[in-house]
């Protein structure tokens, strides 16, 4: 059991015996009223998206999912292919079921593939991943507009906002739960 205060992006819960993953959530509280969590959830079996509201203190049923460590191989025609590192068995998962995960998948990376009643329904990427910046406008040193983030392209094709001092070729750490920049990795 979770309570609503455990809500985070990517959390998997069960509603009416079907697994859902949290795409987004927001804590809101109308003046003097009760705290309300507005959530957007994706059904992990059929990809449909629903909106649900929960009140402070309500509980959520945890989804019972099997996990297997697999290696990401490649993607083709909207499917992402993974291989079991021990049995060499391969399987494909449609991109609709993967949420933001493809932003962080580089060839040969190990991920946890999630199974519901033996069907692969998603992947769990690590909370933090390191990816290389492959596309960025150079930052003029001495630029005083340090408040502005800039958009760069990563080796996975994902575009994201980073501080202006990040350059092409830098390795950066990303928090996959929020999709935000954490720090530059030396070397």
């Amino acid at each position: 059991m979770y309570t609503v205060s455990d809500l985070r992006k990517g959390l998997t819960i069960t509603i009416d015996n079907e697994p859902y993953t949290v795409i987004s959530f927001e804590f809101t509280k109308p003046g003097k009223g009760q705290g309300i969590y507005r959530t957007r959830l994706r059904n992990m079996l059929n990809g449909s998206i629903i909106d649900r509201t929960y009140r402070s203190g309500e509980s959520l049923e945890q989804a019972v999912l099997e996990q297997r460590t697999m290696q990401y191989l490649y993607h083709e025609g909207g499917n992402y292919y993974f291989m079991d590192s021990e049995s060499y068995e391969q399987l494909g998962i449609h991109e609709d079921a993967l949420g933001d995960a493809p932003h962080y998948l580089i060839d040969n990376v190990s991920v946890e593939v999630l199974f519901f009643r033996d069907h692969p329904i998603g992947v769990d990427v690590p909370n933090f991943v390191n990816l290389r910046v492959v596309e960025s406008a150079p930052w003029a040193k001495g630029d005083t507009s340090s408040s502005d983030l800039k958009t760069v392209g990563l080796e996975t094709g994902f575009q994201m906002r980073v501080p202006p001092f990040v350059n092409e070729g830098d390795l950066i750490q990303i928090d996959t739960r929020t999709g935000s920049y954490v720090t530059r990795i030396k070397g």
Partner: protein
Amino acid sequence: MGSNWRLASKKRALETRAAAINGIRKFFQGHGYLEVETPFRIPAPAPESHIDAIPADGWFLHTSPELCMKRMLAAGYPRIFQLCHCWRQGERGRRHISEFTMLEWYRAGADYNGLMDETEELVCSVAYHVTRRKTLLYEGNRVSLARPWQRINVAEAYGRHAGVSPEQALNAGTFDELMVRDIEPHLGFERPSFLYDYPAVRGSLARLRADDSSVAERFELYIAGLEVANGFSELVDPGEQRRRFEEEEAYRRSLGKHPYAVADKFLEELADMPPSAGIALGVDRLVMLLQDAETIDDVVAFTPEEL
């Protein structure tokens, strides 16, 4: 650039915050208000069903300076304002932070209509002081601050946007859900909106309307869907206030929350309080609007997570 790029990136927002606070002080000084300070740690907060104070060495951090400021009104300070931090347990989200900055002001002799007028004046004055503009751009919406602003009563808003009456929503236990899901997203986009005349059970510390006791003279200000302020024609009847406190405290205790002591000194002195209006305005939210900031995190130097 140092290693804390996140803090460095807040520089413009923090300049906007400082300018807004300057603008607020300038406004109240020009309107004959006295700036006051009251203790942050208090023995007996006002019991409210859905607002929880953080315990602090046997007492509590205040959730608003309301009770102390009303004691000042009762003692003969007719126009007072305060800028201070307040704490509310468990409130954290894009628009919430458990330690935040509140502006509260009280005016003897005014009612909620007069206070809505004054709130319009204040926000326009501060926005102009900070941005030199008469519009706000927030999340792609252009909100004109030209007065008068929209005033829509709660019954009309529920009927129009949720298709039910406030009473039906209260009976079904969906009043708050409908508010955040169906109503707030419509409020304050062309011009700021005042939502007013709340059902009596949601009256908090507001007096009931003389001509319709089913509603309380309470309002909330919304700008671009963001709730910015909550004001009342203040309840000055100590018997009625004590009864409401007892109800709220019983509800709180039924949920196993920290028991509060009774605010006896406040209740005694309330008998001396002149008819007044008072309002609490979230300064961080106002700065979000002035800075077009997506989250409250962007307008405070440090969030709890960054400490």
